[in-house]
């Protein structure tokens, strides 16, 4: 068979496979174009899950008729004025999206520059361009994509249900809306009410308002603000409290210079920051914005531009972990207030339930009351703080308030100025002991047991040298390694805390983790796992009666401990019920 140049239509379809994966990627490309055109308002309309129709209308700069004809050609763009790929400041730059979409769908673009007399329209169907023709439109651009993938039926088969595609497309808009609070977004999809995010001011305040709009009140109320700057890199955003977690990482909104990304370095940093706060398999909610000099980051890694490459990943990673940890340490004494909501929704759901409960309880009254009285003592709180009458009143204004009682020998009920707090005594004490052990580890270093026979661990040469580079840091954690030829390391000393451990397995874990996430997490995690099980055994169990003074001491210690909002398995240590929520329960509000 002879070699031949592929026809342009085929080339475009091949390229489309990378850029246009599903309706969500069409939406993303078109909205990014609108943003790059300096739009102030963007409207996105979806029909048939975005497969039938995607229409993006903006009030941006528009294009002249000549530009429009060129815009649907491959690698034609207005966005790289000086051909410098190393300082990309627009969202797009590859000049691929429009021709790619045109190659697989019916694309129509109507556009008008502010000073032009009229608008022009171009139609591209399955890669075939029609002639320009005049049209009517205000300044801006309207792009319509109909019957996506009608030209590539195979691709169409891989799409999910309309509902799922629609959800993904909406998610793409939400991500971009988060990135640009200064632009108003309107989102119209068939199966839900139209949503409008009003334009907000530039800066942190506008961003917070937009985050509240997009992410909802839950994150806003259960998150802490993250701020951090190191050298030319700045980070801001919101970090969800560990008690507010999800089973997947989809609710992690990460942005680099306003570009939504799902980058490994950043995701890894988030994971590391939450490492001992969450159960394995639970993911935190975060919305984080990284801004840095465009020359310090390469966005030209993949056509979809969700991965980026940092010139100094260590710096970004370190900054992110630090900023998150600091923010969480401050916010960590809080625990999610979602419990109260659940409670009130329960009451609402069971609107008539109270009466039903009373009915079933009524016959009990019929029982001989004397015999019931014998059980009275079972129903009183395990401990009662009312008796020593004069409680120091000042503890009421503390965040966790004053202990009032212990119930079921497990939970402490405390009163605060504006509500009440339920504390799980075991979970709370476990976290206190754990933090103490952790501090001791950090302060005293890790004692190291030398090995009689150093263990030789064979590794990939790149992994081995990466590990050896970090040898100093590892020895601080109790693991002493040395280079042993190009593809192996020698383990001489291991953390005494781990007892008799599988050194080779540990080193391999570390190497893998380091290649992927560039961190020494597995080693820290093992050390902390030991600390964690020690703290579990060394803490006050459920079922132990606490004296009032003990309860108050526990509350005060929790207020003074970082991450006291959840035990080291990620469960909350306390739930707060606001007075307002209680009043709602009783219909007072």
């Amino acid at each position, binding site marked *: 068979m002879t070699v031949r140049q592929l026809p342009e239509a085929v080339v475009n379809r091949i390229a489309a496979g990378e850029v246009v994966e599903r309706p969500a990627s069409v939406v993303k490309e078109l909205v990014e174009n609108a943003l790059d055109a300096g739009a102030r308002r963007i409207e996105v309309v979806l029909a048939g899950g975005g497969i039938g129709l995607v229409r993006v209308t903006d009030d941006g700069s528009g294009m002249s008729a000549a530009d429009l004809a060129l815009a649907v050609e491959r690698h034609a763009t207005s966005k790289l004025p000086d051909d410098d790929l190393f300082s990309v400041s627009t969202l797009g730059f590859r000049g691929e999206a429009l021709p790619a979409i045109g190659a697989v769908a019916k694309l129509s673009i109507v556009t008008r520059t502010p000073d032009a007399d009229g608008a022009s329209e171009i139609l591209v169907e399955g890669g075939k361009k029609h002639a320009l023709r005049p049209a009517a439109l205000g300044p801006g651009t309207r792009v319509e994509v109909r019957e996506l993938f009608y030209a590539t039926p195979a691709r169409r088969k891989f799409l999910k249900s309309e509902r799922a595609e629609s959800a993904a497309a909406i998610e793409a808009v939400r991500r971009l809306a988060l990135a640009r609070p200064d632009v108003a977004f309107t989102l119209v999809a068939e199966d839900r009410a139209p949503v409008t995010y009003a334009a907000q001011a530039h800066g942190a305040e506008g961003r917070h308002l937009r985050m509240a709009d997009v992410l909802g009140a839950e994150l806003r109320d259960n998150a802490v603000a993250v701020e951090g700057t190191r050298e030319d890199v700045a980070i801001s955003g919101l970090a969800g409290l560990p008690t507010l977690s999800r089973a997947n990482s989809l609710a992690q909104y990460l942005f680099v210079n306003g570009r939504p990304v799902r980058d490994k370095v950043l995701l890894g940093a988030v994971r590391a920051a939450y490492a001992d706060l969450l159960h394995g398999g639970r993911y935190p909610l975060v919305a984080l914005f990284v801004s840095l000099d465009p020359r310090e980051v390469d966005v030209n890694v993949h056509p979809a531009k969700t991965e980026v490459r940092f010139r100094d990943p260590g710096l970004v990673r370190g900054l992110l972990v630090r900023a998150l940890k600091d923010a969480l340490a401050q916010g960590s004494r809080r625990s999610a207030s979602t419990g109260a909501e659940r409670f009130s929704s329960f009451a609402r759901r069971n609107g008539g339930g109270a009466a039903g409960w009373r009915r079933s309880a009524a016959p009990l009254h019929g029982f001989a009351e004397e015999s019931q009285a014998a059980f009275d003592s079972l129903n009183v709180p395990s401990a009662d703080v009312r008796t020593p009458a004069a409680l120091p009143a000042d503890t009421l204004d503390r965040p966790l308030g004053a202990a009032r009682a212990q119930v079921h020998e497990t939970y402490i009920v405390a009163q605060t100025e504006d509500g009440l707090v339920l504390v799980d005594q075991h979970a709370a004490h476990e976290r206190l002991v754990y933090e103490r052990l952790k501090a001791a580890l950090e302060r005293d270093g890790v004692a190291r*047991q030398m090995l009689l026979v150093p263990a030789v661990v064979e590794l990939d040469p790149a992994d081995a040298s990466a590990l050896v580079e970090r040898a100093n840091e590892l020895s601080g954690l109790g693991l002493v390694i040395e280079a042993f030829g190009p593809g192996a390391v020698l383990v001489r000393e291991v953390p*005494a805390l781990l007892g008799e451990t599988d050194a080779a397995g540990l080193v391999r874990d570390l190497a893998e983790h380091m290649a992927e996430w560039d961190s020494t997490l597995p080693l820290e995690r093992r050390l902390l796992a030991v600390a964690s099980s020690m703290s579990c055994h060394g803490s006050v169990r459920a079922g132990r009666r606490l004296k009032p003074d003990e309860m108050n001491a526990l509350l005060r210690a929790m207020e003074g401990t970082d991450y006291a909002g959840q035990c080291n398995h990620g469960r909350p240590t306390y739930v707060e019920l606001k007075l307002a929520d209680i009043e709602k329960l009783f219909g007072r509000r």
Partner: protein
Amino acid sequence: MKVTLERSELVKALAHVHRVVERRNTIPILANVLIRAGKAGLELKATDLDLEIVESVPAEVKSQGATTVPAHMLYDIVLKLAEGAQVQLETAGDRATLLVRAGRSRFTLQTLPEGDFPDLAAGELPHRFTLAAKDLKRLLDKTQFAISTEETRYYLNGIYLHAIDDKGAKLRAVATDGHRLAQVEIPAPKGAAGMPGVIVPRKTVNEVQRLLEDAGEEVAAEVSPTKIRFTLGKTVLTSKLIDGTFPDYARVIPLGNDKTLVVDKGEFAAAVDRVSTVSSERGRAVKLSLSDGKLTLSVTNPDSGSATEELEVDYGAEALDIGFNSRYLLDIAAQIEGEKAELKLADPGSPTLLRDKETAGAIYVLMPMRV
């Protein structure tokens, strides 16, 4: 099958064999003990597929036969029968049950066919020798503590038993977990000289130690490269060996250490135990500071405090500070029989050799900790 025997005889035999049977099994018959009545009496056999114990018990056999019943249940039943009772075991003709009768008690136990009971085909065991029970006990007892429990280095999960020729033929046992090593030897019994080096698994070691408690004077051992068998009186234990290569342990034994410390073993162990009280639960390091004639033991725990204790010792070399895991020190001290323990040290980063000052034949190597 129908047999009658003394309760106490049955209890003793079952106590030996039932321990091999795991509490939870995926193969049902492994939960059972094989009972076989032959001309010579009753034979009990239990296995976990790696280890097999067979014990014969004197019994009055009315009719021969064999069956299998749940081992732990039979043991519990027999244990609770009145002392001095005569126990009758009888299979019920066509039904798969065993009738256990003693006094007025009757138990009917479900059985599984004896033909399904696995056999640990031992094959040929060419190397045979006999050794004194106390010698075998010494080999196992003094090395057992150093066996590794870490599964990935499976070849360390047992005692390495082998014959060497070092100023006369010796039978040597070695165990190590990578932090410490124990080596004990006895003069090789006749027939042991040519035996292959074998790694006896931990569970087997534990069972043999237990059987040695009621054993007579002598134990017969038979070894092949894959199996080992110990015959202790009426009990025969056959075990698979760990299929692996024991590391070349000789090169970690420091023979050139020149700083000699001699301590009173009892005083030393008690002092280590006392000072380590203040250390946290894990990774308890005790620091040994040596100077002329004096040993200072110290432990510092930033959370709770510190402890020091001075001992008068026999030490003439230059001053030295070295750290050890206190539990390891106590483990080794417990193995030393004489009054004096001798430590040969080099520096805080090199292995230390410990041994009994008076009796030879056992040495211990311990790797220090960085403190």
